[in-house]
């Protein structure tokens, strides 16, 4: 008998969703289980990853940054993937899966617009109707991404409830899915949500870590001492961490410290869920959540829209609990500094999200915590952030 997909990571994960969705999750679990090792499915996916997305992405030795920070640094260049971020790895996988499942329509949520853009790309490439929910406030902040999605034929639906950001876009996408579950696939953009999404997204993103294993052996003849990745929901982190889980490599999940690790009973000045969250249930999963003493979800905050989320993937919460990953955080200001470092020393403009990982390396390289050989996941490029950065410089 085939081994069933695990629905829990320790006490985390699960399926906390309206009854209407349970059969759809069951179906998705079955279908994913059927196709994940199917040679035809994988051949088609690999074709798109290679010829459409541009994989494998390079592992680049950042010589000048290494000199500056005092530790040997390699950058995993997900910023060079089509669309400018790792998001496409997952959307290609799930859109293809939706097509194999016979679904006619894709819906998705997006915060900064990176996942939405990747969905629009996959949707266009596979010819599947794609509709993206986006917080009305985020649509203003990221209007170029809205336009990109529309150019590729996707419909962007403004969400005006709650804080009008990512969390509310997820709520609204789930409401849509509840109403249209028979024809529609909900393409979740991170390792969050009810089972089997955290597993599916992790698997599709694991291509990042699998490539790093081969590339670093080729270049260094050994594994790195540590891997550093920014963490919001956690898809780029799980993607690069997962293939190294059983190896002697330290894994650092760097969250958004925002403007300080403080919170009121309505909002947090940060988005550091692994560092400061408590056990809770949000968006279909049990995980660490930023919440007040009654369990109301806090509005999170970060200069990087892609990290601005009050939850985190359940597998990351589990790995943090058992001590396999190390949750850390970088503040907005530290991320901005690191952003400029990477621009000046390497000629690479990173996403503000990824800049949090760079910032953590900057501030701890000389402590020895990271060892001698570090891989940083540059999960995306920073073109989308130029307006934010210009605004900060004044």
């Amino acid at each position, binding site marked *: 008998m085939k081994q069933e997909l695990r629905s829990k990571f320790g006490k985390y994960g*699960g399926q906390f969703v309206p*009854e209407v*969705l349970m059969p759809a999750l069951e179906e998705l679990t079955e279908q994913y289980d059927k196709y994940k090792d199917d040679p035809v499915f994988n051949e088609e996916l690999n074709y798109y990853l290679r010829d459409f997305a541009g994989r494998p992405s390079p592992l680049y030795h950042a010589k000048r940054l290494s000199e500056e920070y005092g530790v040997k640094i390699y950058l995993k260049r997900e910023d060079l993937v089509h669309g400018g971020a790792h998001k496409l790895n997952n959307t290609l996988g799930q859109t293809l899966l939706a097509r194999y499942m016979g679904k006619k329509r894709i819906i998705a949520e997006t915060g900064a617009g990176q996942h939405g853009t990747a969905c629009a790309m996959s949707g266009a490439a596979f010819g599947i109707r794609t509709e993206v929910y986006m917080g009305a406030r985020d649509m203003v902040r990221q209007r170029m991404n809205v336009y990109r999605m529309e150019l590729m034929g996707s419909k962007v639906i403004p969400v005006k409830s709650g804080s009008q950001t990512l969390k509310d876009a997820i709520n609204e996408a*789930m409401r849509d899915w*509840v109403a249209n579950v028979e024809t529609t696939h909900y393409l979740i953009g991170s390792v969050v949500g009810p089972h089997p999404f955290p597993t599916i997204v992790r698997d599709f993103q694991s291509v990042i870590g699998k490539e790093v294993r081969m590339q670093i052996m080729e270049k260094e003849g050994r594994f790195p001492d540590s891997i550093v990745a920014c963490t919001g929901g956690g898809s780029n982190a799980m993607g690069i961490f997962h293939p190294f889980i059983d190896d002697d490599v330290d894994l650092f999940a760097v969250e958004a410290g925002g403007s300080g690790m403080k919170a009121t009973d309505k909002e947090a000045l940060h988005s550091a869920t692994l560092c400061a969250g408590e056990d809770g*249930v949000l*968006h279909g999963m049990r995980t660490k959540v930023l919440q007040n003493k009654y*369990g109301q979800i806090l509005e999170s905050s970060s200069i990087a829209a892609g990290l601005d989320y009050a939850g985190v993937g359940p597998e990351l919460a589990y790995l943090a609990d058992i001590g396999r990953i190390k949750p850390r955080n970088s503040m907005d200001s530290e991320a901005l500094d690191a952003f400029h470092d990477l621009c000046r020393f390497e000629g690479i403009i990173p996403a503000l999200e990824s800049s949090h990982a760079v910032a953590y390396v900057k501030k701890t390289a000389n402590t020895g915590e990271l060892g001698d050989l570090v891989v940083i996941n540059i999960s995306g490029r920073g073109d989308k952030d130029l307006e934010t950065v210009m605004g900060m410089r004044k």
Partner: protein
Amino acid sequence: MRIAEKFKQLRAKKEGALIAYICAGDPTPEATKEYVTALVRGGADIIELGLPFSDPVADGPTIQAGIQRALDGGMTPDIYFKMVGSLRLHIPLVVMTYYNLIFKRGLEKFAKDCAASGMSGIIVPDLPPEESDELQQACKKNDIDLIYLVAPTTTGSRMNRILVEGKGFIYLVARLGVTGARSDVAVSTRELIQRVKTDTPKAVGFGISNGKQAARMIEDGADGVIVGSAFVDIIASGKDVMERLEALARELKEGVRR
């Protein structure tokens, strides 16, 4: 009063049940107490009192707005239980809320607080039976009914499990989608009511807003109807709220009398 007892009374009188939902604290805790009495005067048989959660994924725009007003008005679980404890009702009262508020308070404490404040049941729209063992135990210990939902997509072994484990009444979700008043009630509702074979009372919700629709549900074999958004709409308007809540409850109750 236990829910089962209420349905027994109603069956003897050949009446269907009107289960009326409003969100506690919308727009203030004091107002809610008044509104509950208006619903009871109009003929509500069971009151379903929402405990507002910041991220209500199963609710449509009307109830979302009500929840937001309640949160803005300062409603918390502590205030909720205090307020409920001060209501002197002679009909069953059930709490409808999302799982995180229960989880955070502690399942045992939540169930105990329900019992201590005189509540009879709990409805949790984001807690399918697969995840509900622990809450079920806490409820049993405290004599609280954990009420399950059945959707048009529910079939087979999952349906059986819900019908075996469901207490109080079975909450039939009339259509795919979120809460909210609809002019049309799905044809498939009748099919769903007939597909759910159980001795536990069946109450239909999601989309019902008038006496005619309510009557239709009872004709189709339901034991009760659940109405929420239509009441919350009245509260949102802020105009003659008491009178109109009572009048709508009366119209719906007329509808469910066989």
